[in-house]
């Protein structure tokens, strides 16, 4: 047997740490030069497990599946006069509304009662406006003629409210402008992602303490002994070693770090001064060990019609279905019905199109180890408009109000999704807005991340968030916030499913003495060595539990994950327990269901 001299043969155990031993040679008997082919010889010589594993490792076809458990709290009661919306609310002030609307009363004796169509009704949009699969396909005057808002098509039941895709992070945006606040203070930052993480000096040199303490509005990711490269300098020095983390508060070590105060003067470290910093692992090799900060960008790789969304069996979340019977005389259209405030159903999302990752690289140029279920608010029924984007640190309230980041005048919060509209006969010329479907190749922003070449590790600093808020033309929330920056709901569009794993150790070596250095390895000009993490094969899980093992069938990989999809209110405009009736009229508790109602 002749071996190509350019080919190096390495032991299978050297492929990665803990790699299993595998025979590399075929044992050929020397007893004779020919061998008679005997029956079953083929099945004896070929290992089914080996063939399965070979096919599995080579397969780039994925059919990801997830089960969505939706957690949603209907938090904003508002009012509307638009008849299709008005007649389908979960009423929160029905008695007062009925008194105004039926100004001459509403009894059995006088039918039909006189009405004042200019009276708005108060309530929550029902859960069907947020549900993954709409089931209100038979509501006359809303989803069915006459005088309906939308003529419901059952085939679109899963795409009226949300659309689902598979995406992957394909590059980094270092120039994204970000903004954050320190809750409870007037401190606010606006910075470019590549600048690092924002901080302010919690305890400065003016306090004459032994340490200068910094606080970040997001997790800093530092360890004691590492360094920070500040955006400001003290006598030309920007690197400072972290001496401790946190204060006395639990969990504060993730947000607070300190450096030793060796007698700094001036106002660089003045209390409440602020700036940005980057993490540096080794001050002696800051070029290789300094972190990069960026916003991941995702590319959509499935069409909207590929998503298959079905009920997840009989699973329901623990919070239950919150519904009530709307009493006939307390509705504007004199129809008794059940109205649902919050639902509890879970859904399974799969795709009827193969996801082929062949040739795809992630945002660090590495093989894909994660795909993302990207769920986008569609809002076809037109309750909302002008969806915004931000990050988790933007979800904190700024003195009880939404951060200025979310204002519709802030172009940095615009989503890369086109908004469309339609009108209805009963709505006149006022538009109902909805988000267009995305196609393969569409790109979206993603999480705010940190990457360190020395660590070969990407850390998600803050998750990407979308904010949806009501269109004030059709549904008015009762509070004093400006219409350009109202309360809304947040959701996380990208939810990962792991399809492969990098090793939890780092390989380092030169091309001279290491074979098989992957093309994604980082080359350090300082040390003249490559650094990388091995890619574990499918089905291998190391002693630390790192690795993936999921079904492989008929040439396709079937990764699965459970996803909790939260639609989180930014705040509330009603007392959460309804007991304390505040400025917003809510009197749910005063409406008693009759002993016998037509909802039963």
């Amino acid at each position, binding site marked *: 047997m002749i071996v190509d001299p350019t080919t190096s043969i390495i032991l299978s155990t050297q492929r990665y740490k803990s790699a299993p031993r595998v025979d590399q040679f075929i044992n050929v008997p020397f007893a004779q030069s020919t061998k008679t082919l005997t029956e079953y010889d083929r099945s004896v010589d070929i290992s089914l497990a080996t063939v399965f594993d070979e096919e599995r490792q080579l397969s780039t076809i994925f059919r990801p599946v997830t089960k969505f458990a939706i957690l949603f709290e209907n938090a904003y009661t508002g009012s509307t006069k638009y008849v299709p919306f008005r007649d389908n609310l979960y009423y929160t002030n029905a008695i007062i509304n*009925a*008194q105004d609307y039926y100004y001459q009363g*509403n009894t*059995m004796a006088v039918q039909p009662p006189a009405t004042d169509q200019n009276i708005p009704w108060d309530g929550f949009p029902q859960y069907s406006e947020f549900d993954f699969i709409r089931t209100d396909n038979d509501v006359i005057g809303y989803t069915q003629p006459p005088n309906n808002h939308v003529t419901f098509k059952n085939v679109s039941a899963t795409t009226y409210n949300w659309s689902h895709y598979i995406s992957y992070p394909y590059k980094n945006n270092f120039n994204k402008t970000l903004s954050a606040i320190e809750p409870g203070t007037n401190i606010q930052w606006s910075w470019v992602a590549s600048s690092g993480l924002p901080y302010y000096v919690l305890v400065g040199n003016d306090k004459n303490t032994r340490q200068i303490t910094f606080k970040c509005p997001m997790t800093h990711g530092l360890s004691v002994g590492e360094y920070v490269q500040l955006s400001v300098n003290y006598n030309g020095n920007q690197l400072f070693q972290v001496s401790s983390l946190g204060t006395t508060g639990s969990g504060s070590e993730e947000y607070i770090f300190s450096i030793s105060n060796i007698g700094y003067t001036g106002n660089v470290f003045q209390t409440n001064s602020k700036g940005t910093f980057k993490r540096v692992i080794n001050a002696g090799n800051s070029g290789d060990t300094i972190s990069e900060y960026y916003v991941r960008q995702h590319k959509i790789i499935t069409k909207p019609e590929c998503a298959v969304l079905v009920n997840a069996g009989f699973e329901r979340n623990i919070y239950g279905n919150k519904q009530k019977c709307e*009493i006939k005389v*307390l509705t504007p259209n004199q129809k008794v019905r059940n109205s649902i405030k919050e639902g509890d159903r879970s859904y399974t999302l799969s795709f009827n199109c193969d996801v082929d990752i062949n040739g795809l690289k992630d945002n660090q140029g590495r093989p894909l180890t994660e795909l993302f279920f990207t769920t986008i608010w569609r809002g076809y029924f037109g309750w909302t408009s002008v969806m915004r984007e931000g990050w988790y640190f933007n979800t904190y309230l700024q003195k009880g109000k939404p951060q200025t980041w979310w204002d519709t005048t802030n172009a940095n919060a615009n989503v890369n999704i086109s908004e469309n509209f339609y009108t209805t006969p009963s709505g006149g010329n006022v538009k109902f807005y909805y988000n267009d479907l995305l196609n393969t190749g569409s790109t979206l922003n993603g999480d705010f991340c940190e990457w360190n070449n020395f660590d070969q590790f990407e850390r998600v600093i803050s998750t990407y968030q979308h904010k949806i808020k009501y269109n004030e033309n059709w549904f008015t929330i009762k509070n004093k916030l400006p219409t350009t920056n109202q309360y809304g709901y947040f959701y996380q569009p990208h939810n990962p499913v792991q399809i492969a794993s990098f090793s939890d150790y780092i390989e380092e070596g030169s091309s001279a003495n290491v074979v098989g250095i992957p093309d994604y390895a980082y080359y350090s000009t300082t040390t003249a060595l490559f650094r990388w993490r091995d890619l574990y094969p499918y089905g291998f899980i190391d002693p630390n539990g790192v690795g993936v093992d999921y079904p492989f069938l008929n040439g396709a990989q079937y990764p699965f994950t459970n996803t909790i999809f939260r639609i989180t209110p930014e705040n509330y405009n009603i007392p959460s327990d309804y007991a304390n009736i505040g400025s917003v009229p809510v009197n749910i508790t005063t409406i*008693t269901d*009759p*002993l016998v*109602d037509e909802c039963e």
Partner: protein
Amino acid sequence: MGSDVVHNSEWKVLPFITENLPQSNANQYIFFGDNYSPFPPPPNADDIKPVMGLFFQTPDQNLRYRKIESPGIETYSFPSLTTPLIEQKFGYPKTQLVPNYKWSLKQSLPQVSIFGSENNNWYTNTIGGGFYSKKYQDLDFTTLGEKYITSTTNLGYIVNYDINGNPDPSITGVVQGQPIGNPSSQAAGTGEQQAIVAGAPYHFYFGLNNGKTAVDRFYKLYVATAEEI
């Protein structure tokens, strides 16, 4: 039959004790007079008979409870100057059909008050055609001619109302006259409207312990579930 006995047996009627009377004007809740009140008896009258009565009052909330029990109406908005009446009738389709008959007060001279007199002058015979059948929880005191509604009685209570339907808890009000007279001598239809169904379905007063009647159990289970009764 005495209305005091009836009322004291009814659900939501507080016992007539000192603690339950508004102290500022407690005397206004007790009527002391005679069979000539509010006019003075004629000189040398020898048929003066003392009459004492009690004024009860009820809030709208209690009225709402009574309408829930019969005929099954949930009231969401009581009429006032600013709010209209909004109510939902749900009814009791399975309530039992029972016989009913009506009562009226025979007129006694010189005056008659809603408190009645010592003559036990409640009258029933063929008023409204004698016995008639009606579902027990379908009795409706809001319908004219059905139950309690007359020009001076209303809302399921034998109480005093003026001709406008407003409560009239005054000494002069008690003799506004209704129900009066022999119903058979009234103009057609009038007598029937003066006659009432007494009792059903709001009170049982035949020997059961106070608060432990079937009506009390019904209230507790279905009508005022959150309240102590």
